[in-house]
C-alpha cells in the first residue's frame, strides 16, 4: 500500500510542475507584452509588438493619454523602456534617467537619476548630444552617458549600483548607443569615428560592472578577439592580423570602426550580431587598404567575445557608409528551404540578407537610388564601386547617391512576422563632396571632407518603405518632405507607426501604407516608438519628440544655413527645418479612449 502511494506522488508532482511551468511561461509571455525591456523590443531587433488592441479600424480614435516634458532642447533619439509598471526614459546630454509610474494617473515621476556627465563631452559628439535609450534586465536599468560611462541603476528606486568609465573624451571618444544585456553581460560600444577613435565592443558583468571581455574593431587579432573559431565565409576576411595589415603604418589606432548602433542576439546559435562604423578619416587616400574590421558585421560568442565570422559591407569605405545599422534576425524561406538569416538595410543603400550561421550574403538589393556602387558581387562579397564617384583629393565629386548618411542611417526599421514586411524609415539624399587631407589632433575632428547635401531624384528628402525581404522589393512607399529620422514600430494589430521631422506622429496600415491617423507633436520626432500594455490592460503607444540628431542639427545647434556645409553638410539641405519645428523634448503616450 505504501509503495503504491509513493508511486503516485512523483507523478502528481510532475504533473503539477508541468502545469505550473505552462502557466508561468504563458504568464511571462503575457508579461513580456506588457513590457518593452530594450529599445529594439527583443533580441532579434524586430521592434514588433504582439498587442492587437489597436487596429486599422480603431486607430483613428487614438488619443493622447499623457505627456512629459524632459526640459531639454537637443535631439531625443531614445526609445522609452517599459517594465510592468514603470517607464524609463534617457534624455540627451546630460543623460538624465527619468522613471515614470505607469500605475498612477498621468504617469507621475517616480524618481530621476542624474549621472552628471562631463560638460566637455558635448564638444566631442559629432552628431548632436543624443542617447538611444536604456535597457532593463533583472531589476536593473543600464544606460550610457555621453562622456563614455556605462551606468547601472536599481530599477525600483533609482539608486546607483555601479558605473564604469570606458571612454576617453580627451581623445574624442563618447557613447550614445543603447546597451544590450545578454546572459548577464551588458554589451556596450563607443562612438567617435569622426574623431579618429579606435572602435570597440565591451561586455560588462551586469552585477559588478567589471569588464568581462572587449573586442576592438581594428588592430591585431588578439585584440579583435579573432582566434581559431573564426571562420569567415569570404576569402578577403581570411588572414592573420588583417586589422593591422590592411592599414598603412599605425593608422588602425585612429581607424574608427566604432560600435554605436544596434546589437542583435540569436539564443539558438548563441551569437550576437553587430556592425562596426566607418573607417577614419573620411578621406580614403590617407588609409589605403581594406581597413579591416570597419564598415562590416561581426558574429561573436557573447560569453567570450570570440569572433565566429565577419563580413565587410564596405571594404576601404570612402563614403562614410557605417556598418552599424540593425541586423534583424528572421527565418526566411529561400530557395525552397528555411534559412536562418538576418535582414540588414545598410548605409550604402543595399538591403542585405545574410546567412547568420556562416556570414554568406544571400542577396543584396538596392532599396534607394544608388550610384556609388553598381552591384554587390555575391561570389566575392565585394561591392562594385563606380570609379567616377570615388572621392579623390583635389576634385569635387558631384551627385554621389546615397549621401554620407546613407540610404538609411541609424534610424531602426521594424519587422512584422504577420505581413513579412520590413518597415524602413529612411531618406532620399545625395551629396557633392570634396575630400581634403585631414590633420589628426587628438580630441578634435578627423574627417577631411567638405560636403554639400541635396535631395535625390524626386525632390522628397524622406521615405518610409515597406520592403518584402524574401522577394527583394518595395511593396509600398510613402514620400516625406524631410528625412524620416525616427524609428519604426510594427504591431500585431496591423498598424505601423513612425514620426517625421516636422513633428507628425503617424499610424499607417501595415499592409497598404494608407495613413490612418496622425498627431502633431510639439517638436520634430527622431525617437523610437514603442508599444506596451499598461497596468490597466490597455495598449499604449509611446514616442519621444524633440528634434535634433545629425539631420536636425540646424535646429538643435542653432546653425547658420548660409554655410551649406554646416553640420557636416546638413545645413544647406535642412535650411527650412527651423521654419517647420523648434526644439523641445517631450514624451507622448497614446491609447484608445
Amino acid at each position: 500500500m505504501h509503495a503504491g502511494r509513493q508511486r503516485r506522488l512523483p507523478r502528481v508532482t510532475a504533473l503539477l510542475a508541468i502545469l505550473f511551468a505552462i502557466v508561468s511561461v504563458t504568464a511571462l509571455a503575457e508579461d513580456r507584452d506588457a513590457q518593452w525591456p530594450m529599445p529594439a523590443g527583443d533580441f532579434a531587433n524586430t521592434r514588433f509588438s504582439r498587442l492587437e488592441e489597436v487596429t486599422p479600424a480603431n486607430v483613428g480614435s487614438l488619443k493622447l493619454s499623457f505627456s512629459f516634458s524632459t526640459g531639454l532642447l537637443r535631439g531625443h533619439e531614445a526609445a522609452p523602456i517599459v517594465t510592468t509598471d514603470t517607464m524609463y526614459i534617457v534624455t540627451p546630454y546630460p543623460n538624465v534617467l527619468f522613471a515614470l509610474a505607469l500605475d498612477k494617473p498621468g504617469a507621475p515621476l517616480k524618481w530621476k537619476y542624474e549621472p552628471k556627465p562631463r560638460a566637455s563631452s558635448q564638444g566631442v559628439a559629432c552628431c548632436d548630444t543624443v542617447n538611444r535609450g536604456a535597457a532593463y534586465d533583472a531589476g536593473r536599468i543600464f544606460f550610457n552617458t555621453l562622456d563614455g560611462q556605462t551606468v547601472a541603476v536599481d530599477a525600483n528606486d533609482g539608486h546607483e549600483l555601479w558605473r564604469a568609465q570606458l571612454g576617453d573624451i580627451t581623445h574624442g571618444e563618447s557613447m550614445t548607443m543603447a546597451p544590450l544585456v545578454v546572459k548577464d553581460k551588458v554589451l556596450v560600444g563607443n562612438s567617435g569615428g569622426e574623431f579618429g577613435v579606435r572602435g570597440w565592443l565591451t561586455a560588462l558583468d551586469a552585477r559588478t560592472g567589471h569588464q568581462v571581455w572587449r573586442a576592438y574593431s581594428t588592430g591585431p587579432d588578439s585584440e579583435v578577439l579573432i582566434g581559431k573559431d573564426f571562420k569567415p565565409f569570404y576569402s578577403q576576411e581570411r588572414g592573420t592580423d588583417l586589422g593591422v595589415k590592411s592599414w598603412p603604418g599605425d593608422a588602425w589606432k585612429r581607424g574608427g570602426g566604432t560600435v554605436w548602433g544596434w546589437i542583435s542576439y540569436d539564443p539558438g546559435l548563441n551569437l550576437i550580431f553587430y556592425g562596426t562604423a566607418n573607417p577614419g578619416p573620411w578621406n580614403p587616400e590617407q588609409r589605403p587598404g581594406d581597413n579591416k574590421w570597419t564598415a562590416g558585421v561581426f558574429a561573436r560568442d557573447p560569453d567570450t567575445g570570440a569572433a565566429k565570422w565577419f563580413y565587410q559591407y564596405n571594404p576601404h569605405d570612402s563614403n562614410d557608409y557605417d556598418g552599424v545599422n540593425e541586423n534583424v534576425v528572421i527565418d526566411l524561406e529561400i530557395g525552397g528551404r528555411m534559412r536562418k538569416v538576418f535582414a540588414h538595410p545598410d548605409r550604402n543603400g543595399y538591403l542585405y540578407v545574410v546567412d547568420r550561421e556562416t556570414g554568406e550574403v544571400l542577396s543584396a538589393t538596392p532599396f534607394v537610388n544608388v550610384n556609388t556602387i553598381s552591384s554587390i558581387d555575391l561570389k566575392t562579397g565585394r561591392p562594385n564601386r563606380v570609379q567616377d564617384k570615388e572621392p579623390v583629393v583635389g576634385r569635387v565629386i558631384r551627385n554621389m547617391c546615397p549621401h554620407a548618411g546613407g540610404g538609411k542611417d541609424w534610424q531602426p526599421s521594424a519587422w512584422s512576422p504577420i505581413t513579412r514586411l520590413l518597415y524602413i524609415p529612411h531618406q532620399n539624399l545625395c551629396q557633392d563632396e570634396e575630400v581634403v587631407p585631414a590633420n589628426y589632433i587628438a580630441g578634435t575632428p578627423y574627417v577631411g571632407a567638405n560636403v554639400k547635401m541635396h535631395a535625390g531624384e524626386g525632390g522628397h528628402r524622406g521615405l518610409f518603405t515597406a520592403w518584402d525581404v524574401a522577394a527583394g522589393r518595395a511593396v509600398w512607399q510613402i514620400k516625406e518632405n524631410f528625412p524620416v529620422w525616427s524609428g519604426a514600430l510594427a504591431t500585431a494589430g496591423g498598424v505601423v507607426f513612425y514620426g517625421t521631422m516636422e513633428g507628425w506622429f503617424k499610424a499607417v496600415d501595415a499592409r497598404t501604407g494608407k495613413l490612418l491617423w496622425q498627431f502633431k507633436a510639439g517638436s520634430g520626432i527622431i525617437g523610437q516608438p514603442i508599444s506596451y500594455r499598461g497596468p490597466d490592460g490597455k495598449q499604449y503607444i509611446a514616442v519621444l519628440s524633440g528634434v535634433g540628431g545629425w539631420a536636425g542639427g540646424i535646429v538643435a545647434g542653432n546653425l547658420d544655413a548660409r554655410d551649406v556645409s554646416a553640420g557636416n553638410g546638413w545645413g544647406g539641405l535642412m535650411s527650412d527645418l527651423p521654419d517647420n519645428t523648434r526644439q523641445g523634448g517631450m514624451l507622448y503616450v497614446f491609447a484608445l479612449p
Partner: protein
Amino acid sequence: MHSAINTAGPRAHEIAELMTLFTAVCAVVYLIVIGVLIWALLRKRARARLASEAEREIADRKARHVITWATALTVLILITLGLSDFFVQRSLFTPPKDPLRVLITGHQYWWEIEYDHPDPSQRLRTANELHIPTGKPVELVLTSRDVIHSFWLPSISGKKDLIPGRVNTEVLIADKPGLYTGQCAEFCGLQHAKMRLVLHADSPEDFEKWRQQQLQPGREPATDTERRGRTVFTSTSCVLCHSVQGTDASATVGPDLTHIASRGTIAAGTLPNTPDNLAAWILAPHRMKPGVQMPATPLPPDDLGALTKYLASLQ
C-alpha cells in the same frame, strides 16, 4: 652633386646629351651666320662696282644657289634636331617597367614623401630626403598641397611640376650610389629658394636596410632627458603639425619626424641636422627662413634641450 651637365643617371644623361647637341649645332650655325653676315657687309661695296647686266645675272644665280643650299641645310638640321628631340622624349616618357613608386607632395616649403606599396602596411612616410636604390627605375607621383612647385634633381632627371589638383609623374634612375641635391624649380613663395631636396642613391641592399629601419615606429626614449623631451613634444604645439609614429602625434600638415635623426639636413635641405641648428630652428624658424609656415616656439632652455635630445634620438 647638383649639375645638369655632370649627370649621374641615364635620363639626365640623355637630356644633357640633347642639350649638348643643340648647343653645338646652334653654336656652329650661329658662327656661320655671323660669318656670312660680316662677309655680306664687306662684300656689298664690291657688288656695287659690277657694270653689265650679264655679270649681275651670274651674281644673282650664284646667290640663288647659296640660298637654296642654305635653306636645304637648315631644313636638314631642323629635322635632325627635331628627330633627336623626338627620340629623347619618347625614351623619357615611356612608362618604366615595374618601378618603385614614390608619392611626392609639395608644400610651402618642404617635400612630403610617401613610398607606395601594394601591401598598405609596408607604406612609408618621410620628408625632404629621398632614398632610392640604384639601377631601378623610380616613378614619382607628383602633386601639391598648396601652390605649384617643381621637382628638379639636375643630376638625375629633368624638371616636373607639382600642381595642386593634378597628378604628374616623373621617373628617376640613378646609375651609382651617391648624394645628389636638387630644389624646387617653380617660384612658390618667399622661401622658394630654400626648398631643397636631398637624394641618396643607395645600393639595393642599403636601400632595403634603410626602408626597414624607416618602417619602425619612433624609437622609445632611453634616458630621462629624452623622456622629458617627448613630454615636451606631446604637450606643446609640436603635435598640432607633426607626427612621430608610436606616439599620439599623427598630424600631417608638417613633416613626419619619426626618423628625423636619420636625415642629414633639416628645414628642407637648408640646414645641417645638428642639435644646435635644431634648437635654433624650433625657437625661431623665421630667422633662417622668414615666411615659413612653422611658427616660433619659445620654450624654456631646459625644455628645449630635452626636446632636442629627444628629436636627436629618433633615428
